[in-house]
């Protein structure tokens, strides 16, 4: 019997040489006349161990990492096919403290299965939610989603059940399901990991959304920066079609659902839902006025379910295990689990799926192991480029939409970017303004012009020209942007800027006391 060896196809693993490792294993096995079957799985999410190689032995899966192609001969000498001892041997990854303490609902299969094998998907619990949904009426599916407490994972945390009910209740001969796979926030990659590591769960979630609302056509709007995810999605969709999961007769039910991947083109603003819809319609991604909301008038003016990848990927398990099962995780009004991404200057970066309620400190220290540089952590940015900088004094904050909002921070898509004490917060504030200027859709003046002015003001502050006066100007600018912008790009870019100014005035060359009082 051949030895099954897993080498991730995940883009991060590949960026660190996973393809070369897979090729080296293939070559070494051939040279030693060992029969191996290499499976390209998703990443387990322990990024500092990538490329992580797992071999299936009689005693379970044994992991080695981080493996380079040059390590492969020695690993075979050490008896890798049987899980032999070696300095890179990690053992069963599920016993690793980073993994063992997680609560993986959305990511239940990622890293475990062959991402594009329908058989593997089903053997690990896939399609059970869809089968259940096919036996239920639309209203019952919507009720289950509402009952689970699931809120949108794309950033705004809007209750998914309410959105789906609106689409269900809006009559139309054609409705759409659109997946927001634009994942533009720095410090996030959970969407990518799902699409590369378990794309069928996204297909299943979107299908269930179609059944719940009467939509028959789905689109995945995928950012152009994710070619690996595109390949995995196309393979998964083809496999789903071949197995009668997608198409004219979903699992023999007589129901129809089609799914297409559409590539974005490098515009951050196209993650904003109405800009995304414009883009899907083939136009410039200029933000639309709301109302009407997309659930009433979305793609091509039709009722449209529009959700983030993680939102859809959380749906199958809710249908399979029931709304209560999901709702039992979490705290307050933040129910279920959140795939959190530990990124930037962190020793153990990766993906940690936990129930809401886990604190920043636990994540940064118990999971993350502190900064990668070994220096003190100065601040973290949570929730993407529009999220505030959170100083060490607030690290006991629990992950909870309301608790974060109360201190002016944002859970967003669950990305945490870590900065050590060498980071210059004034430079980061300048970057926030620059990013807004580059990515503005141009519709409103405070965002388009204000951000450009913001960069100029920051340049003067950094250069030390009239610091106090310029800081006042910066505060006024932030105010104008906050109140005069149509969407969160212009409306929230002030958050990281103001938080940097408030918590780290010395980086702006300003006295701590005066500013702390003013901010």
């Amino acid at each position, binding site marked *: 019997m051949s030895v099954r060896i897993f080498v991730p196809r995940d*883009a*991060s693993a*590949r*960026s*660190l040489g996973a393809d070369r490792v897979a090729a080296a294993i293939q070559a070494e096995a051939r040279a030693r006349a060992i029969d191996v079957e290499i499976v390209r799985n998703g990443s387990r999410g322990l*990024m*500092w161990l*990538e490329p992580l190689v797992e071999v299936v032995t009689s005693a379970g899966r044994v992991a080695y990492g981080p493996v380079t192609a040059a390590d492969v001969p020695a690993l075979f000498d050490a008896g890798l096919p049987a899980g032999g001892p070696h300095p890179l041997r990690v053992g069963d990854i599920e016993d690793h403290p980073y993994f063992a303490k997680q609560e993986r609902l959305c990511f239940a299969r990622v890293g475990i299965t062959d991402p594009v094998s329908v058989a593997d998907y089903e053997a690990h619990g896939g399609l059970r939610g869809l089968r259940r949904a096919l036996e239920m009426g639309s209203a019952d599916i919507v009720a289950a989603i509402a009952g689970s407490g699931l809120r949108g994972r794309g950033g705004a945390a809007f209750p998914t059940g309410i959105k789906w009910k609106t689409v269900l209740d809006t009559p139309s001969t054609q409705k759409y399901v659109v997946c927001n796979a634009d*994942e*533009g*926030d*720095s*410090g*996030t*990659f959970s*969407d*990518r990991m799902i699409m590369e590591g378990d794309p069928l769960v996204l297909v299943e979630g979107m299908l269930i959304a179609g059944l719940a609302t009467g939509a028959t056509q789905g689109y995945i709007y995928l950012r*152009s*920066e*994710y*070619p*690996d995810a595109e390949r995995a999605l196309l393979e998964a969709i083809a496999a789903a079609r071949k197995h009668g999961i997608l198409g004219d007769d979903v699992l023999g039910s007589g129901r129809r659902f089609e799914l297409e991947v*559409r*590539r*974005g*083109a*490098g*515009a*951050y603003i196209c993650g904003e839902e109405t800009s995304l819809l414009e*883009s*899907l*319609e*083939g*136009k*410039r*991604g200029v933000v639309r006025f709301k109302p009407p909301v997309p659930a009433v008038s979305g793609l*091509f003016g039709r009722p449209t379910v529009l959700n983030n990848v993680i939102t859809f990927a959380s749906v199958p398990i809710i249908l399979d295990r029931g709304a209560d099962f999901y709702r039992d995780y979490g705290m307050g009004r933040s129910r279920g689990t959140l795939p959190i*991404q*530990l*990124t*930037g*200057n*962190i020793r153990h*970066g*990766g993906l940690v799926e936990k129930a809401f309620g886990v604190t920043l400190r636990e994540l940064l220290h118990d999971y993350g192991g502190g900064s*990668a540089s070994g220096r003190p952590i100065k601040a973290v*940015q949570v929730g993407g*480029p529009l999220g505030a900088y959170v100083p060490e004094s607030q690290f006991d904050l629990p992950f909870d939409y309301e608790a974060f909002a109360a201190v002016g921070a944002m859970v967003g898509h669950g*990305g945490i*970017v*870590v*900065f*050590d004490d060498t*980071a210059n917060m004034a430079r*980061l504030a300048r*970057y926030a303004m620059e*990013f807004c200027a*580059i*990515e503005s859709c141009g519709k409103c003046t405070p965002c388009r012009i204000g951000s450009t002015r913001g960069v100029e003001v920051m340049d003067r502050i950094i250069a030390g020209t009239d610091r106090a006066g310029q800081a006042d100007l910066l505060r006024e600018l932030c105010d104008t942007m906050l109140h005069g912008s149509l969407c969160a790009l212009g409306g929230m870019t002030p958050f990281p800027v103001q938080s940097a100014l408030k918590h780290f005035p010395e980086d702006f060359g300003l006295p701590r006391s005066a500013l702390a009082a003013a901010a």
Partner: protein
Amino acid sequence: MPEDLNVLIDAAIDRHKSVPGGLLPLLHDIQDRVGYVPETAVPAIAAALNLSRAEVHGVISFYHHFRSNPAGRHVVQVCRAEACQSVGAEDTLESLREALGIDLHQTTKDGAFTLEPIYCLGNCACGPSVMIDGELRGRVAAGAVSALLSEVGGRP
């Protein structure tokens, strides 16, 4: 425009002209094959999709991904976003500037390399991240730049 380019663009237009919202897929199709969206393609696209030329131009210029001119033989996209900044992306960018002798949005005189910024590649736990000719590279510290460039383009 050269005959074969014409044929290629017409074929791409045929593939997408009846697709709902087909302009972006069409532009991608052309850029994937030609390397950029030639100015000369705009009138044909506009006619086939029933748009004005200005509208087609507007779309091409709105999106950072589309280019109206050919790039160098190798395209180096360096991530400038926060997570990569936290582990030295600015130094990586500086090394790239120095090694190639160009700034962002420029192409080397020999046409070998184009240097571009990109804002997050979803590799934020393994930065600094760089994408070269569509291939993602992780942990590209400033010191790793010259080895990377010579691996790709046979350059010091």
